[in-house]
């Protein structure tokens, strides 16, 4: 079943800070679509992704999953529908396999289910040669791909990828783009933040351009791209 995420006038201020990192953002995100979030450094891209992923509770406004406010309900059950992949992913102690199984273990899956899910994603992202390696010895690009695989094995409705291409070489980028397209085809909601507007245009249906925490431009990818080109 599809999902709709509504951001209604959300703002976010980091604890101890006086200025808002995200200001009065309203946008509706629908399943089966890929949304690109872009903007200069410090424009609030990561904060917005973390709000969508229910890691940060907005200081003003509401996030609605379908019609419910997860923050007024059982937040853990809603968090299990969304996964956020950090720009610089953290690996826990142990092998790549341990890391891939982490979320599934947390959610109480049994050994066979874990194996089956991991095998499927590992084949898709071509990670089988890394499974037994210590996760902390991986290169930045390998870590990024493992973190994305760790998210995908959970089969979330919403997947938020923070600068997912920043450490990937050409082949890995291509592989990831294929996966993103597949996810969209399966009716998942994909949100990607990136500085690379060209990449977002090629991958996403809709682009949100942030500046100083607020949306200054949004719309279908092609339109936003043309607008940005004409401005600069």
């Amino acid at each position, binding site marked *: 079943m599809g999902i709709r995420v509504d951001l209604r006038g959300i703002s976010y201020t980091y604890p*101890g800070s006086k200025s808002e990192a995200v200001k009065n953002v309203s946008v509706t995100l629908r399943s089966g679509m890929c949304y690109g979030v872009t903007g200069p450094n410090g424009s609030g891209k990561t904060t917005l992704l973390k709000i969508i992923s229910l*890691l940060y509770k907005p200081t003003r406004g509401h996030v609605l999953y379908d019609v419910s406010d997860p923050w007024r309900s059982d937040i*853990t059950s809603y968090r299990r529908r969304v996964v956020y992949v950090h720009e610089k992913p*953290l690996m826990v102690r142990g092998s790549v396999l341990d890391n891939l199984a982490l979320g599934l273990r*947390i959610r109480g899956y049994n050994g066979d289910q874990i194996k089956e899910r991991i095998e499927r994603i590992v084949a898709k992202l071509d990670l089988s040669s890394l499974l037994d390696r210590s996760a902390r010895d991986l290169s930045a690009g390998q870590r990024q791909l493992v973190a994305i695989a760790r998210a995908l094995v959970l089969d979330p409705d919403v997947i938020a990828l923070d600068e997912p291409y920043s450490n990937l070489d050409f082949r890995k980028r291509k592989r990831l783009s294929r996966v993103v397209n597949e996810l969209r085809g399966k009716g998942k909601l994909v949100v990607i933040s990136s500085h690379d507007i060209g990449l977002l245009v090629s991958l996403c249906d809709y682009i949100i351009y942030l500046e100083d925490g607020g949306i200054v431009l949004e719309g279908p990818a092609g339109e936003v791209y043309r607008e940005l080109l004409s401005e600069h």
Partner: protein
Amino acid sequence: MEPIQNIVLRSLTISGTATLLAALWSLPLAYLLASSRRFRPLVYFFEALVGIPTVLVGLLLYLLLSRNGPLGFLELLYTPQAIIIGEALLITPLITAVSYQVMLTGLSYYRELALTLGASDRQAALLVFRETLPSLISSVVMGFSRAVGELGVALIVGGNIKGYTRTMTTSIALATAMGEYEAAVKLGLVLTAIAVGVSLVVRLVRREWASE
């Protein structure tokens, strides 16, 4: 003079128990302090108490445990239990303050990771504990080193009773006062060897852990 191995064993038992006791409340306390900004002012309090003089802790505990004190009915004064309580209180600020810093970093990384993978608050806390365990062990070992090397508490509430509450540090003080310098130096060397040995073991454990 009592056989040195008895004194060493007693010291290790007393300080080890005190350390376990202190870790039992200091680690959850550190997690609480790190996970809520409301409790942050308490961190400064614990940090300030890290260097509290051992004789002051000994004196305060003496006043509490002495026959006319509020806890005199427990009849703990001049017992190993009194030293254990005193040392546990002495090292609580140290373990709490160091563990707080470890958990603050751990929470900012691992808690978020756990939550995004669908963990409940309890599961997230367990992951933070698991991933920061080597550093937490180090903070507990620091506490043990301070406990085993302190003199004030052991002397004031333990009373340095031969065969009962005599520890390595009180023995060194006594031997020095009696001019038995050879015995004092011997115990001092044992004390140093324990501190160095424990530190080496911890370093080894951390290295093994990191390479996993």
